[in-house]
């Protein structure tokens, strides 16, 4: 909480939720889509003065089949590889127009939206470059842990042991054999002002994190856990529940990295066992007790490391 003083921003409270909706109903997302829900909440937090640059992915496919569109704000679709580069360009162009006096409104937020494939695999180098150059935009990564719009193929953000169509179950394969890429930590290593993780099951937390990202000068990266009922093989009404369980079981810890300082919130002293998270989803139904123990140990170790970072940030604060 103490690190909040570094960031001045207008907080959204439950009593004063914005009415604004950036997306019209009637888009083609699957029933119970956690990604479109998280996107809607994030843009609700940002308000209408926003420009969206959208990498290819589920969001683009479901919201804008020509000649239809669900977007009520300026929106641009670009390829997987260059969403961050285009976002950089939009930001640089706006800066140039402001300098020349042809634009006066300096408060527009530029948001780059990508899925986990578009962020951790294909768009990774342009994102890394944009963060290094320090462009003033927010990158929202909607992580549904596979390439969902093309039919559930594995990405580098797919967790270990998970079923996908490219790591199927059978005698030669039992789900993904590699670990999930820890994207927020990689982004924090770029030393950018703001990195956070969020879920649509904690909407106020998500909206306020996005607003903090908009308030900082320089790039912000927000990693959003986006339950996908279709790809995770679960009933549609579970998408909020699964996000809550993922946070409670420390599978997906919620934290922020503000100017290099780790702040861990909503950290439960008695986390749920990870098996609670796995048993809700069909993509993990083949897990053995040994697999679950392996993951439990890894999740505990990750959480300990995260808390030690947070303590370290706390300790160094008092130094001259």
């Amino acid at each position, binding site marked *: 909480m103490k690190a909040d003083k570094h960031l001045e921003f207008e907080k959204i409270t439950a009593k004063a939720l914005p009415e604004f909706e950036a*997306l019209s109903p009637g*888009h083609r997302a699957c*029933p119970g889509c956690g990604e479109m829900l998280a996107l*809607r909440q994030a843009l609700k937090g940002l308000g209408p003065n926003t420009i969206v640059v959208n990498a290819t992915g589920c969001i683009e496919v479901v919201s804008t089949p020509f*000649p239809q*569109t669900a977007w*009520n704000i300026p929106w641009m679709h670009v390829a997987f590889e260059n969403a961050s580069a285009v976002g950089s360009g939009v930001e640089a162009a706006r800066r140039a127009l402001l300098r020349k006096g042809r634009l006066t409104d300096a408060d527009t937020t530029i948001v780059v939206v990508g899925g986990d494939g578009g962020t951790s695999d294909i768009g990774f180098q342009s994102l890394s470059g944009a963060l290094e150059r320090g462009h003033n935009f927010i990158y929202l990564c909607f992580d549904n842990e596979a390439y969902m719009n093309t039919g559930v193929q594995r990405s580098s953000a797919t967790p270990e042991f998970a079923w996908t169509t490219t790591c199927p179950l059978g005698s030669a394969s039992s789900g993904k054999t590699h670990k999930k890429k820890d994207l927020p930590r990689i982004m924090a290593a770029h030393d950018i002002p703001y990195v956070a993780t969020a879920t*649509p099951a904690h909407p106020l937390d998500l909206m306020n994190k996005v607003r903090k990202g908009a308030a900082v000068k320089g790039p912000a990266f927000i990693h959003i856990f986006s339950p996908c009922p279709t790809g995770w093989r679960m009933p549609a009404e579970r998408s909020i529940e699964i996000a809550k369980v993922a946070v409670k079981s420390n599978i997906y810890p919620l934290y922020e990295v503000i100017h290099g300082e780790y702040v861990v919130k909503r950290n439960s002293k008695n986390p749920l066992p990870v098996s609670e998270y796995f048993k809700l989803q069909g993509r993990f139904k083949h897990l053995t007790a040994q697999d679950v123990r392996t993951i439990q140990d890894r999740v505990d170790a990750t959480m300990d490391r995260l808390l030690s970072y947070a303590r370290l940030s706390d300790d160094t604060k008092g130094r001259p």
Partner: protein
Amino acid sequence: MAPHTYFQGEGPWSDADQLMLYLDTGSWRSLRPVVDAEACIYCGLCALFCPTQCMINKGEYFLPNLEFCKGCGVCAKECPRGAIIMKPEGECDASKE
């Protein structure tokens, strides 16, 4: 319903035809959320968690917009008072009220 009502705020960069913007995702639904207006405490969680943003604020309770509701059941699952039940479409009357 007039298809224009939803799309007054069309983004300036889009040249999509306004008349084509209406997609009847309500026809995907097999379960219909039925709100018990008496039990509703007007907390707004269903509206905040609806992935299709189709819950309409009626002042004292919320009602789903059945033109768009895909019947995912998130609202019924997350309602703290259990005021929403998912009823099979076959048992509902065909009207959209």
